[in-house]
């Protein structure tokens, strides 16, 4: 297994939402940042430097994997990421309901769940972060 990990530095995040745009373009091929698999959660009180990037933690004991009745969530042994196999998915939305962090997201237009799969080992979002708040190293 590769030893690279997704590193998130909330103190560096300016909530510019470049990562959301990059993710939306990479996975949906359209600029729909609200459906991105990474979310820059801006501080509700608008204090500067208090934004948090919320992206899948690829949990070891993942609730989404436990909840899936169809074994449609598999772990990529190369990157350690849990990825969603669309051809096995029965779209019951159990995984979306089960994730405690909101990183398993429901796409209402396509009626599919979606999650961060680390882009197969080269996360697009990290390349577009201007401050280095999200790094893959």
């Amino acid at each position, binding site marked *: 297994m590769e030893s690279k990990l997704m590193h998130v530095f*909330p*103190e560096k995040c300016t909530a510019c939402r470049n990562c959301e745009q990059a993710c939306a373009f990479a996975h949906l091929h359209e600029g729909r940042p609200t459906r991105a698999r990474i*979310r820059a*959660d801006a*501080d*509700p009180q608008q204090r500067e430097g*208090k*934004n*948090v990037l*919320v992206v899948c933690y690829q949990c070891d004991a993942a*609730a989404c994997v*436990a*909840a899936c*009745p*169809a*074994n*449609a969530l598999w772990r990529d042994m190369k990157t350690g990421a849990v990825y969603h*196999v669309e*051809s*096995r*998915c*029965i*779209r*019951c*939305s*159990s995984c*979306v*309901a*089960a*994730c*405690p*962090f*909101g*990183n*398993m*997201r*429901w796409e209402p237009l396509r*009626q599919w769940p979606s999650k961060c799969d680390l882009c197969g080992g080269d996360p697009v979002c990290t390349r577009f972060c201007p401050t280095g708040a999200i790094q893959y190293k």
Partner: protein
Amino acid sequence: MIRLTIDGKRVEARNGEFLLALARREGIEIPTLCHHEAVEPAGACRLCMVEVTKAQWNGFSKLVTACLYPAEEGLVVRTDTERVMKTRREVLELLLARSPRAEAVRRLARQHGITVPKYNVDEEGDNCILCDICTRVCSTLVTGAIARVNRGVAKKVATPFDEASDVCVGCLSCARSCPTEAIAFLDDGLKRTIWGKTFDVVACSVCGAPTVTKEHPLWMAQRKGVVEEDFHVCDACKVGKTGQACRKVMW
């Protein structure tokens, strides 16, 4: 490893692998309607017919459903012979006559040059082609609320005695996996009605957006022991909660 030939291409199959899975892995297109990778193959739609033969069969060949035929040593598979295409067109004519409004059937028929079937078209025919995906998904992966009932022309998919099922959790897996969108349901964000049963949709405890039905998390908690509180918040609000928790720890 088993060695065989598909459309002139030498391929290697795992023991017990079915021809359809093997062909798809090798990038050979075989049309299907009843195939879903989450469940066992059923051979219901008969669209994946292929012609198989062996060198020692002295010219004899037979038509088999690729989704149910296991790979054998020395098998020669053809997916595009005239016999295969004729059978495939015949199946599509029958399916189109039964379900003239089903988009998936119409698209496949069009690809095979059929716009008007030669059989009498059932104008009132519903979209269900009895492919069995919904019943297989529900009985093996969810709660087994629906099944095929009756025989012959009266055969259909339904709950027992057409009554509201007491085990259905309203997850909509059947409707969403249906290739022809034949399963009707209503969902206005407050109530969800499917198979004659009406469910309350739980509103997100933070923003009020609809999440899942009340029965869905109960079934999941019982089956997998997943924490039940996580089900009452929608995915967008859970992101906010995660951010808030992180902020509390960091600053």
